[in-house]
């Protein structure tokens, strides 16, 4: 069974000149424990895609299922990390994460909730900033808190909407490395949206190219044949990196979904 499945999903919004299709005929399948990245231009409907899977918005057509159950609304089984952190500014780091723990695990005792909150704050190395408010933190630290909050929900799928796009290059690299480490430790199912090709190759098992809108759709998957555990060091020298990069760049430049060539390519719903 496909773990997370999107079948013929379409979404349009009404605008001044009638309805404009943002996504159409999107088919995606994720296996459990898989890390999939969607790469595409900004404005191509990437954020809409995340909103649909998160259940914050409903598709006009098609069907989204998580573990066979249709997605009808938002829920903590799909933890979202938003592009702009969306931490609650009136709460401390601890309180932001604690709110999530409290909401998804109301049955735990208070001590257990506190433990779990601390655990995930430590996981992103923010124990010293625990009592600070978001405005006292740097962008990278804020996004770490958002990641901790998402992980603390122990979601079935972790949805990341361009999580590092607002950060400077160095901070972004650090957070990518940390996300890689966290994922390799936990093997959580991750669906990540990004416009950074290298980020996608470093992290993902498969990369889904999103065509240019309007009416964007997902092209055949590009597998990333780089063994795990991965490391940033020497990554660009690996043939797997070069193959994936070439196909994505070809796609991004031509706007046409890459041809389905080579073994293992386009294995939708395929397990690595």
């Amino acid at each position, binding site marked *: 069974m496909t773990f997370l499945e999107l079948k013929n999903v379409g979404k349009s919004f009404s605008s001044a000149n009638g309805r404009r299709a943002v996504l159409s005929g999107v088919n995606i399948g994720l296996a459990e424990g898989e890390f999939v990245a969607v790469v595409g231009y900004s404005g191509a409907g990437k954020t809409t895609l995340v909103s649909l899977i998160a259940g914050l918005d409903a598709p006009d057509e098609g069907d989204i299922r998580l573990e066979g159950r249709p997605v009808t609304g*938002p*829920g903590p089984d*799909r*933890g*979202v990390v938003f592009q702009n952190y969306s931490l609650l500014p*009136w709460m401390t780091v601890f309180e932001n994460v604690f709110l*999530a723990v409290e*909401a998804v695990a109301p049955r735990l005792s208070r001590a257990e909730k506190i433990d779990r909150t601390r655990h995930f704050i430590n996981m992103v190395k923010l124990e010293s900033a625990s009592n600070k408010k978001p*405005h006292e933190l740097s962008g990278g630290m804020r996004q770490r808190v958002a990641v901790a909050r998402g992980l603390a929900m122990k979601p079935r799928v972790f949805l990341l909407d361009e999580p590092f796009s607002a950060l400077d290059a160095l901070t972004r690299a650090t957070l990518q490395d940390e996300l890689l480490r966290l994922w390799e430790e936990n093997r959580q199912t991750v669906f990540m949206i990004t416009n950074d090709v290298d980020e996608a190759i470093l992290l993902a098992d498969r990369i889904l190219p999103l065509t240019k809108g309007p009416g964007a759709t997902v092209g055949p998957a590009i597998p990333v044949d780089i063994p795990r555990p991965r490391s940033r060091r020497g990554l660009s020298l690996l043939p797997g990196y070069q193959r994936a990069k070439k196909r994505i760049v070809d796609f991004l430049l031509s706007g046409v979904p890459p041809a389905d060539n080579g073994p293992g390519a386009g294995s939708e719903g395929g397990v690595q």
Partner: protein
Amino acid sequence: MKKKVDPSPYLLPFVGLFFALFVWTLLSATVAKDLPSPYRTWTESKHYILHPFFKDGEMNQGLGRLAFYSLVRVVKGYALALLIGTPLGFLIGLSKKTSQMFDPLIQVLRPISPLAWLPLGLVIFQKSEPAALFTLALCAMWPTVLNTAVGVRSINPDFLNVGRVLKLSRWQMFRKIIVPASMPYVFIGWRLSLGIAWLVIVAAEMLTGSPGIGGFLWQEYNALVYSHILMSILTIGLIGFILDRLMGLLEKRFRTT
């Protein structure tokens, strides 16, 4: 290099003050002969200022006492305004239907002067004190209602999405996200409401003849002690200024981001 302190921000307010005193003196010496000069105002009023808590009868008391009566009345009426206005504002901000239901009504009620409400209050309550509070609350609550509603409507949708992803209950959503997120606007409303409450108290006291700074002002006008009118006016202004500053400090403490 030594940093030079620019003294003008501290000096210029006094220049303005002296200018106002000069105009006042000029007016009292030329066109408005009945207007007491600043010096006369001070000599005739200093008893009230230097002994702010004396009491020689219901309507002849020190400034401190008079201001205290007015402040107590304002606090009561203002509390009433917030108690009604804040929940009403949240209701209007949260529900489109409530907004459609009450918005026209609010737009009509809002511009009504306290002087118009007061007789109605007297008709309803038959006594001056509840009538004054009624007027105060009715006039002062609108900025709170409107700003709270705007605050709720302008909450960053990302914050609401966080609550939706966490599947917070309606009550938790309200308490943990909607209320704190709209607080900056609510505070603006509260601050404006306090300003209006203080404006209205004076009018209400003048009309009902209640002891307080406004009542005293009106009584001294009838008694032809004009210097006390000036003293009362200055006191009203000063207290209004202080109230606004206190509210501003409180607002700063609660401001997030």
